């Protein structure tokens, strides 16, 4: 049985494959970042993953590392992140992606003890629907899982190309909302090919009744199309979008211009996702 606490998240995947963009909140500053998220939603995002930047992002490639550095530099903190989310004017579910230490430490000053409950409570308050915590393995997820259940949020896990057998079982017991299918080994980052590992992963996951969103290295509408055609329920795109943000920073472009480019890129990716769905639908009909 697959858990799903958040109705919004469940619905986002129910209605055909989802386009799930990722941005780092506060990159390069709160105001621009807000405009960028809203642009992605205008461009067709079904869910938005928002990164809360952590000082040691061990799962990220250079693109997202830089985005995180810019966001931290601009003063992003967990509290400001929650305010940022509260301020956002979008109608799609938001998933917070961060590292466990920030989840673990939040609210410690009041409670005196570290633990994930205060973080989840506050996230629920501002309307977050779920979490991805890439350095939290299923084995250590108990307390966060409990808090998510208490506040009705989902806990997304990553499944890697190397995840099989017992480990896969253990993760799939814990996962809710959707499963993050890592398209290839390594860290995040835009690549120009689509890995065969993805197909194999999707195969392994076929039996599990939970939306499968594929991420790591998707950068074009064509990629998105092929992934969805291969059976994915969604595509997660981070670095390819952050490249647009980074370009804007480098060239000192006005926020509105960068936002327009992001919206366009989102449309491309969303369109790819849709084409993939048609192909996938056609195929499933054939089979």
């Amino acid at each position, binding site marked *: 049985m697959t858990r799903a606490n958040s109705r919004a998240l469940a619905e986002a995947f129910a209605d055909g494959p989802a386009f799930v963009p990722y941005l780092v909140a506060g990159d390069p500053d709160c105001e621009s970042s807000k405009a960028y998220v809203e642009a992605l939603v205008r461009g067709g995002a079904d869910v938005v993953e928002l990164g809360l930047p952590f000082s*040691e992002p061990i799962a990220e490639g250079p693109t997202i590392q830089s985005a995180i550095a810019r966001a931290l530099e601009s003063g992003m903190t967990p509290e400001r992140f929650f305010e940022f989310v509260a301020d956002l004017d979008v109608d799609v579910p938001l998933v917070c992606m961060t590292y466990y230490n920030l989840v673990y430490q939040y609210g410690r000053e009041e409670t005196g003890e570290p633990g994930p409950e205060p973080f989840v409570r506050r996230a629920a308050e501002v309307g977050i629907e779920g979490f991805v915590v890439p350095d939290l393995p299923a084995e*250590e997820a108990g307390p966060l899982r409990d808090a998510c259940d208490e506040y009705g949020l989902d806990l997304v896990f990553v499944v*890697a190309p190397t995840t099989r057998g017992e480990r896969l079982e253990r993760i799939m017991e814990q996962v809710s909302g959707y499963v993050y299918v890592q398209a290839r080994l390594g860290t995040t980052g835009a690549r120009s090919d689509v890995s065969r590992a993805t197909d194999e992963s999707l195969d392994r996951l076929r039996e599990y009744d939970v939306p499968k969103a594929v991420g790591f290295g998707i950068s074009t509408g064509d990629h998105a199309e092929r992934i969805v055609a291969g059976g994915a329920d969604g595509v997660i795109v981070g670095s390819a979008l952050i490249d647009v943000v980074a370009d804007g920073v480098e060239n000192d472009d006005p926020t509105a211009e960068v936002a327009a480019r992001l919206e366009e890129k989102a449309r491309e990716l969303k369109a790819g996702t849709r084409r993939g769905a048609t192909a996938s639908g056609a195929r499933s009909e054939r089979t």
Partner: protein
Amino acid sequence: MSTETDGKFGEYGGQYVPEALMPAIEELEDAYERYVLENEDGFMDEFRRRLREFGGRPTSLQRVDRLSERYDREVYLKREDLVHGGAHKLNNALGQVLLAKYMGKERIIAETGAGQHGTATAMACAHLDLDCEVYMGHHDINRQRPNVFRMRINGAEVNPVTVGRGTLKEAISETLRDWATNVEDTHYVIGSVVGPHPFPAMVRDFQSVISEEAREQIRERAGRLPDSVLACAGGGSNTMGAFAEFTDDRDVSLVAVEAGGSSLDVDEDRGVAPNSASLSTGTEGVLHGARTRVLQDTDGQIMESHSVSAGLDYAGVGPELAHLVDAGRVTAVNVDDDDALEAFHRLSQTEGIIPALESAHALGYLEAVAGPDADEGDELGDLVVVNLSGRGDKDLETVIEETHERGIANAPDMDVFTGGLQ
């Protein structure tokens, strides 16, 4: 005192790593249990033999006469500075590289701060014929240049890490990323008792040869166990290595000496701790795959640590050591930059041994509690063993620069010869 169950030391430890790494970590756990714990295929025999022949073990336990006089007690040094490469680091690097070979890996990666672990790993890889790449922060590349050359000369690649401040913390993160990309043929040789299980336990086991030898040597020399054992603590590998065989000897005090840096205070706004004293001033958190004591701000962001000694300059510490401190078995203390520099010069001048700046911290603590300016009645007892974790050749540039800037009182005048150094 066995402190470990299932990769945990009390609340500390665990495996907080990206999913992509888990298969590699499980494979490593398995290899650790078979080869290290059960000596399958004679792994441990080969390891110990290579430690002797290639590494130069056993290292001597030396009574230092003039310090014994100064502190009015028997002071012995465990001479890990005599290990091939110049520090205890080879004990672990050789163990892990050999293990990787038994596991059929083809490629070794490692992080390094001071460069000591990187050089040890590069040496072990050359010795055992495996490819080696070492990640090193650009700041550390600049302050530990001779070690960069040594790695290159041993045939290793050195990959500069330019994110953040460019020190050990960033290098570890970057090495974890490489590992996550190349898990299948690559082993990550971590440099201290940190990181996800089984690293803390495994590195301790490779390093415990220090206390195994020291315990036997001191009994032979002094006829009894020491009253206390002192070791500096960065990640804590020389520390755990020096303590491991003594933890069940309840009458032996174990003292972990951290880097007090320039101050124990913290600049929350800038996210900077001017020290590396995670046991003394840190709080529980999750860093680099393990729950442990870390230097962090109230949000949980990891702080930049600082120490005049690059090898201690780290915001975390081994989970087992954190647990032993919480449990009261190990006492955590600290020594600041100036006192470490003074201790560096003192040992160089009075005993003819140039210690690593890391090790100088352990010596600095002896001066602080038992030196001429100390209060009466310290707790170290009459028979003290100090683990001299490494030699100070790598630190010459730093020491000369810092000694001048700070006006360290007992330093020789180096003016005449500093011209060509910068």
